[in-house]
């Protein structure tokens, strides 16, 4: 397998960076120069659990993103973009708040941002805009509902489901997640084969089946769904945006967060088994101590299903872009394509529910499609999800608030990017929200080096910690842990990371 980006390409892109910084967006090739940036709209499109590693746009051998590659011809493409965490809650919260998980503290499953920081969010920052949001993912909706006072339109997720639990969600609006979970456990046997209900299950299932019957042939692995029979199609969501966006009061900012290609990987029939019999062989990697005992054959199967699911989102994003283009809205609208975290199929691990922070689970795509841009710019500098918020404010002519921890992305600033800038990601799902980080995985990326520090896990034995150091430029697959052999750089980065952890833990230590 080819690495997502090889050394030569890395250096070439790094060279382009300096050009793109010194030849900013005001030069020919961008049509936005003559427009009033204060009136431009913003559309943020997030596909959940979309790893940059699996996109052909970034060098993956399977052609998973033909449409994205086409659209990249007029976009700014970020090659080393990192999520704030390795699952939805911390990843999305970092994107929406422009702060790292240890600042917003939404690192537990389905957590909210801490109260003092509730107003430090993308939608509050765009207070003069019409703000509209939608997400299939209930974890995202927990955050969106927290920011509800800064939203003009929060579209409930069941609105774009084929068959849904709408009455339950409407009846228990303030406690939707637990009410829905209980309802699912009560009346839906799903894969487990049993439910709380003794008598109503079969009737309910028949009723729901009737509503989705006509869509079933289009999805040979079953209809895309979340939590039981909340079935949906991306076509439905894309059509909704395409038909509504022209009616939004302008300027608007839209945040749309779709579940695919998140598990379960249920692609459209057009892409079914596209990669089932190709000759692709992933790079062999050693079993991780946190492995889930998944065999190579299982991982290969899931990877193929995931890659086929990416083809579906690629098609639908391409279709959305064309629909928007036809309406003319793109002449005045920035489109951001990204993800909240990645997914991995290696080292005995499948998915993203894991303590590890290897590249496939934290490196995500970022493309910014600028109004009127006709050429492509590639950015190799490492960037972070927390940079998106300040960048969007900057490109729409607004000031960046003090609470934002990220920086304006190249090429939108004439400031030279700080080569020694440190980027972080955090996994701390088991920690109490307001306690110091006791059990956590923390990533520090600086230049081409990446240090990951694991602490507090039982599996780590007596030492209670593990340290990994990789040179992403020379070893993008993270095959060789350099920490034992390159103590100097390793210790320097570890000291910096531990000092940072001490700093962020300090407010939460009891006196």
């Amino acid at each position, binding site marked *: 397998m080819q690495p997502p980006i090889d050394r030569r390409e890395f250096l070439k892109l790094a060279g382009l960076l300096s050009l793109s910084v010194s030849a900013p967006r005001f030069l020919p090739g961008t049509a936005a120069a003559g427009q009033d940036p204060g009136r431009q709209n913003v559309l943020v499109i997030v596909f959940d659990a979309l790893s940059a590693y699996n996109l052909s746009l970034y060098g993956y051998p399977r052609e998973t993103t033909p449409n994205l590659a086409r659209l990249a011809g007029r976009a700014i493409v970020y090659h080393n973009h990192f999520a704030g965490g390795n699952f939805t809650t911390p990843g999305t919260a970092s994107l929406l708040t422009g702060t790292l998980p240890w600042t917003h503290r939404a690192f537990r499953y389905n957590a909210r941002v801490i109260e003092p920081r509730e107003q430090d969010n993308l939608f509050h920052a765009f207070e003069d805009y019409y703000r509209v949001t939608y997400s299939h993912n209930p974890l995202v909706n927990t955050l969106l509902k927290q920011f509800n006072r800064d939203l003009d339109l929060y579209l409930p997720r069941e609105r774009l489901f084929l068959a849904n639990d709408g009455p339950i969600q409407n009846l*228990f609006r303030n406690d939707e997640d637990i009410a829905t979970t*209980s*309802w699912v*456990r*009560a009346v839906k046997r799903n894969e487990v084969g049993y439910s709380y209900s*003794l*008598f109503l299950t079969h009737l309910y299932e028949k009723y729901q089946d009737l509503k989705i019957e006509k869509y079933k042939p289009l999805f040979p692995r079953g209809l895309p769904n979340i939590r039981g029979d909340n079935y949906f199609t991306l076509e439905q969501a894309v059509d909704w945006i395409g038909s509504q966006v022209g009616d939004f009061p302008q300027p608007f900012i839209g945040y749309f967060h779709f579940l695919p290609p998140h598990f379960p990987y249920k692609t459209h029939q057009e892409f079914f088994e596209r990669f089932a019999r190709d000759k692709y062989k992933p790079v062999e990697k050693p079993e991780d101590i946190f492995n889930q005992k998944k065999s190579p054959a299982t991982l290969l199967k899931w990877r193929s299903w995931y890659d086929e699911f990416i083809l579906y989102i690629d098609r639908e994003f391409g279709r959305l872009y064309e629909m928007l283009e036809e309406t003319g809205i793109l002449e005045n609208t920035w489109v951001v394509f990204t993800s909240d975290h990645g997914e991995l199929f290696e080292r005995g691990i499948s998915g993203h529910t894991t303590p590890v922070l290897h590249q496939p689970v934290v490196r995500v795509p970022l493309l910014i499609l600028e109004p009127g841009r006709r050429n492509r710019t590639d950015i190799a500098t490492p960037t972070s999800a927390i940079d998106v918020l300040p960048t969007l404010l900057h490109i729409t002519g607004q000031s960046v608030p003090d609470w934002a921890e990220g920086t304006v992305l190249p090429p939108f600033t004439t400031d030279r990017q700080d080569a020694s800038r440190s980027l972080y990601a955090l996994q701390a799902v088991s920690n109490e929200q307001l306690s110091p980080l006791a059990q956590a995985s923390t990533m520090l990326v600086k230049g081409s080096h990446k240090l990951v520090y694991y602490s507090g896990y039982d599996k780590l034995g007596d030492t209670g910690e593990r340290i990994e150091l990789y040179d992403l430029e020379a070893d993008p697959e993270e095959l060789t842990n350099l920490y034992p052999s390159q103590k100097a750089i390793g210790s320097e980065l570890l000291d910096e990371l531990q000092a940072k952890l001490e700093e962020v833990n300090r407010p939460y230590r009891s006196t």
Partner: protein
Amino acid sequence: MIESPTVQNKTWYTRQGLWSLFLICALPIHLWTLILAVKDFSWVSERTNAWDAIGLLSYGMVFAFVESLAVTLAAVLLGFLISRQWEQGRRIALLSTLVLIAALWAMAGQLYFLWGISIPGTILGFLAGTGHPVRILYAVGLALVTPTVLIPAYLVLESDRVFQAVQEFSGRLALLAGLYLLIDAVCLVILVARNL
């Protein structure tokens, strides 16, 4: 106590009879919900917190109450098909017995998955070899279920001893069901608190 046929046969159901039937319907439904919700408790509390786990159980119990009402309604409607040549007490006892048997079979059906039981390979091989495995499975199911419904039904209608035993058993179960309804009331309060 056996009711006087001269009074009771004039109406399909008395208030007392309906209440008794409702309690019997509520019992297995609540019991099953409680067992599975408690089983889910740690799964939820580990991922969110204990309050959410309590919430999950509370919703489950309230949904069980609604299901109990629905099943009672179905049983009442079924009762209209039973001839009034039998007194109301006997008809209620018959309906209670049918509901309990149906609940036991529903539980058995779910236990198959809950305990991860699998049909032995030799039986599966035999079924596959017949050419009509689904038909045979249905036939076996029918052969098992039919006598468990017909025999108790016949005995409740025709045997005073069985009828009295069912009535006594129902009376005791109804007490337990009353306890579950009390839990429902607490769960309802929890639901209101969570949705405020």
